[in-house]
């Protein structure tokens, strides 16, 4: 390895990539725009979901129940249809997320201590939102119901003292949510989005930089110089590793400023993870460049690699939910490890004592992919 020759390649790449302001901007602006769009859009939280209220009872009790829903931040009563048909029509039109029907006997049943029921219709096509809404509805009703029961017991005791005790047993679930106490889905998604964006950027830049030299013929010229494949590879990837690290730092900073993502752990540790991870993406980029002859092929190959790697990285779809075979496959996906590292360091403040298997995996993958690609790259045309 001759550092002077590596330096020449690096210098040339910088000359080529950063000469024009337009090219410089291309390295920074699109990743950041993508990050912002993703960051704003990728959100599974349910708040102020639209609720239709069909009150067939219209008593103080039914109004109290409605007030309980309106008091929750999860619901907003946006429609008050007059009939069941109208309510279902609203669901058909996607105008509401859920609807509640309070039956005519509701207030009277409650007053007499009889069990009653309300009907809840949930727009289930988005199963995830539906599950969360259903949980919230049950919570509100449960609290309301417990209040009614206590009220009723108290009144009954007033009439027949000694029979019913107020201090009935009950269990109360106390939740302690770690790492993301407000349960904001952005905290979960943003680290994954950041990882995916630097993957795409570094993959594409490396693959294209090498294939472009093939297309214009300068690769052949380089091959007849005494430069070694390892020097050429290092020289071609180093600039993009730097661009990748710069983009990643910018994105993490934006995540903290714009999306208020916590940063609990060590910055150095995150940087180390990013460096190890870049070995893999740059290695894959190089590999793509060795199998592609044109830039178009390189783009398509990048896309073919990136799509499944992105989907199977656990960025939005938890790996735990996947079929077991697919879960095994994800162990071959470097994105998986880096996302775990990012979430661990950013949200949990985890250190090497917890994350060492991920770091180890990234190091092993990075070196393996890098050496495989470098070994495929020969200074030969056949």
């Amino acid at each position, binding site marked *: 390895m*001759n550092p*002077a*020759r590596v*330096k*020449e*390649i690096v*210098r*040339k790449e910088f*000359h*080529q990539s950063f*000469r024009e302001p337009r090219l410089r901007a291309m390295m920074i602006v699109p990743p950041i725009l993508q990050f912002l769009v993703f960051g704003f859009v990728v959100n599974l939280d349910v708040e102020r979901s639209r609720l239709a209220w069909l009150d067939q009872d219209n008593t103080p009790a039914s109004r109290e129940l409605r007030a309980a829903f309106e008091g929750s931040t999860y619901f907003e009563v946006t429609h008050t249809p007059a009939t069941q048909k109208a309510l279902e029509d609203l669901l058909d039109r996607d105008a509401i997320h859920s609807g509640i029907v309070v039956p005519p006997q509701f207030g009277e049943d409650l007053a007499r201590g009889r069990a009653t029921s309300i009907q809840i219709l949930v727009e289930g096509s988005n199963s995830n939102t539906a599950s969360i809404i259903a949980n919230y509805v049950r919570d509100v009703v449960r609290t309301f119901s417990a209040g009614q029961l206590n009220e009723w017991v108290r009144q009954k005791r007033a009439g027949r003292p000694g029979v019913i005790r107020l201090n009935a047993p009950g269990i109360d679930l106390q939740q302690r949510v770690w790492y993301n106490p407000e349960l904001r889905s952005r905290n979960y998604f943003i680290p994954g989005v950041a990882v995916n964006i630097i993957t795409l950027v570094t993959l594409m830049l490396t693959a294209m930089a090498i294939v472009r030299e093939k297309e*214009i*013929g*300068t690769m*052949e*010229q*380089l*091959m*007849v*110089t*005494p*430069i*070694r494949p390892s020097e050429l590879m290092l020289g071609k990837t180093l600039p993009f590793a730097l661009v990748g690290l710069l983009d990643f730092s910018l994105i993490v900073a934006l995540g903290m400023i714009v999306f208020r993502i916590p940063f609990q752990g060590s910055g150095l540790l995150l940087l180390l993870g990013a460096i190890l991870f870049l070995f893999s993406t740059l290695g894959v980029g190089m590999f793509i460049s060795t199998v592609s002859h044109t830039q178009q092929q390189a783009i398509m190959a990048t896309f073919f690699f990136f799509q499944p790697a992105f989907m199977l990285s656990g960025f939005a779809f938890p790996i735990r939910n996947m079929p077991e075979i697919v879960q095994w496959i994800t162990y071959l996906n470097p994105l998986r490890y880096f996302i775990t590292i990012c979430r661990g360091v950013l949200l949990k403040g985890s250190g090497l004592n917890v994350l060492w298997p991920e770091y180890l995996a990234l190091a092993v993958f990075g070196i393996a992919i890098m050496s495989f690609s470098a070994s495929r790259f020969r*200074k*030969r*045309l*056949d």
Partner: protein
Amino acid sequence: MQRETAVRIEHLTKRFGAFTAASDVTLDVAQGEIFGFLGPNGAGKSTTIRILCGLLAPTSGRAVVSGFDVAKEPEKVKASIGYMSQKFSLYDDLTVEENLEFFAGVYGVPADRRAARMQYALDMAELADERTRLTRLLAGGWKQRLALGCAILHEPPVIFLDEPTSGVDPVARRAFWDLINDLSHQGKTVFVTTHYMEEAEYCNRIALMYKGKVIALGTPAALREQLRSDELPEPTMEDVFVRYIEQEDAKA
């Protein structure tokens, strides 16, 4: 010939699958010689040159360039040759100077020689006034000379030029051949392919290549002499070329 052999090719064959691009090529090139490789497109000239540069591995046979076997020591070969490919292949988004600096760097020209070599290349290519221009803005002939300049920065004893003058106007072509002559006078071996027949006359010796085979080898004068007859008292290089190809086709 008493001079040292710069390039020795023995029974060199290259196949791509079922297609034989070069078949049993044998020839020697002496140091300081301008050796021309002539033949129609697809005759195997570029393939042979690429093997000599260590870009392709020979299927069988042997080639020695500057004393190094191209199949066994391709990297040593690369340090002692300059190569200019068929296609213009400099970075046209770098300036003239940046291209020279880059190639000086990757060829490992020692730091104390670098400035002198770059100046030499700039002077040779007459690009001293254009050193900060982007290469893409240069005219074809200048680009060609810059490419040659980049290829000889490290003072290689052997220079391979694959159709260096294709697509260049006649005046620029003439000037380019003057450069080749200068290099030869400095003792460099120049191995050049072309399909311009008149350029064959500038070479010390030529080989005619057709369908992967060398079908004629000798000085331009000797080849013409062989063809001289009553009906063709002043045969041109083109006549030589056509005649040999006809003979070859008749054999097949």
